[in-house]
């Protein structure tokens, strides 16, 4: 999958999961998850769990502290595949 394909899929997941975020077309690779959307810490956990099942990966929650943007999230997912 390309980076843009990951972005499109993550936009779909977020639209289905969260009801208090900006329109998904405004979510870009450098959107900061907790600053721009904004997601709370529990939402982040939810997003990570959703990505694990959607992309069939195992993400270590300890690495979540290094993940602030969509770009970093995609890199994290790709890095575990």
């Amino acid at each position, binding site marked *: 999958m390309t980076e843009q394909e990951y972005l499109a899929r993550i936009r779909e997941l977020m639209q289905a999961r*969260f*009801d*208090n975020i900006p329109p998904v077309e405004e979510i870009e690779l450098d959107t900061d998850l907790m600053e721009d959307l904004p997601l709370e*810490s*529990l939402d982040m956990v*939810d997003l990570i*769990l959703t990505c*694990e*099942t959607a992309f069939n990966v195992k993400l270590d929650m300890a690495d979540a502290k290094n993940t602030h943007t969509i770009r970093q999230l995609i890199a994290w997912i790709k890095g575990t595949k």
Partner: protein
Amino acid sequence: MKTFITGMGIWSCIGTSIPEVTQSLREGKSGIGHIKERADYGYQSTLSGIVPPVPDSLISDLPRSKRICMGEPARYAYMAVLQAIKQAQLTDLHNVALIVSNDSTAGAAAETEALMQERHDTRYLGAGKVFQSLNSTVSMNLASIFHLNGLSLTLSAACAGGGHAIGLAHSLIQSKQIDCAIVVGAQEVGLHAYTSFDAIGVFSREASRPFDKNRSGLVPSGGAAALILESDEHFRNRMATATEGGVTAPLASILGYGFSTSPSIATPNAESILASMTMALDNAERHEYQVLPAFSLGMISAHATGTKDGDRAEAEAISTFIANSKRGYHEPYVKDVAPWISSTKALTGHECWMSGVSQMVYTLIQMHNRFVAPNPNLTDPDDACSTLRIARETTPWHIASHALLNAFGFGGTNSSIVIKKE
């Protein structure tokens, strides 16, 4: 120092607001019905309080991250607390304590099991399930939603929990460790909530008949009830700084809290019930510096769930409690004086972990509207009730001043609270 009750709220099978519950109590309108799904699942009895679910629209103003943590009891409790805070006109929740009675989260456990059997992967449970699953789910959620920063906890004492939650809050206020508390009783009523109760045959298949000779068990029910308790000093400070509209007068003050434990895990005995009530009344007398004999109470809100042994033990205890209090008084003056014995579980069913708090709401409603709610299913009173004054129909309550409330639970735990109308 007084402990005032300044607000109340309720979400129950006889109403989801104080005005609605008032009307149901006055009219003797039952909230009990049959849940067919329980028969399909394997319950012996399908009778239940029919508690309306909390629609998503009523919690849509909460952030999603909070909504996903709220299971059934937390949703009920949130609605009840909103009402109580509004009635008390409590705007500053800084340092307000939160004491909750809850003793199960079977619904969340069942959902977890179903998801795990389907997916065999904990990630499918989502981030909120853990907060729905702990016994302290209600206090956890409410403390977060209302940004509380004082004491926050859930206590579990089965069906006496509500009474003990009120008593604990009162004790902490009297010892000046807290000034104000939200007290909540919450009870789930989903399909999985009462399976193990049903297994031991405590449920009636016919009706809720507290104190009746033909009673055949309790009818499970639930929802949530909430109270605002505060010291008189805290209340006066709020009055002094209140803006336009002022602050609503207190509903009642708590005079005494009593407790005991029965030797049996399942059934209280008369001796331990008498001990609990006596302790509560003794504490009330000490608090008020005046004699307060049991016969002078306006009402005793009985636990009375409709079980054979439980109702009999309580009726015997109350009879002894009243009779003993008349000793030393000139017999003709006190012969016909007796409190009303309220048994609202005929209308509501047994609300279990919620019941001590909801009973307080029902008692305060009767007290302030000057009526005794009926026990319409009492057609042939048990012999143990021969000296007790139990209203079968809605009855005027002319001198509604003092009341004593009982809540007893599995494990033998008993609680009693004495209040005075303000």
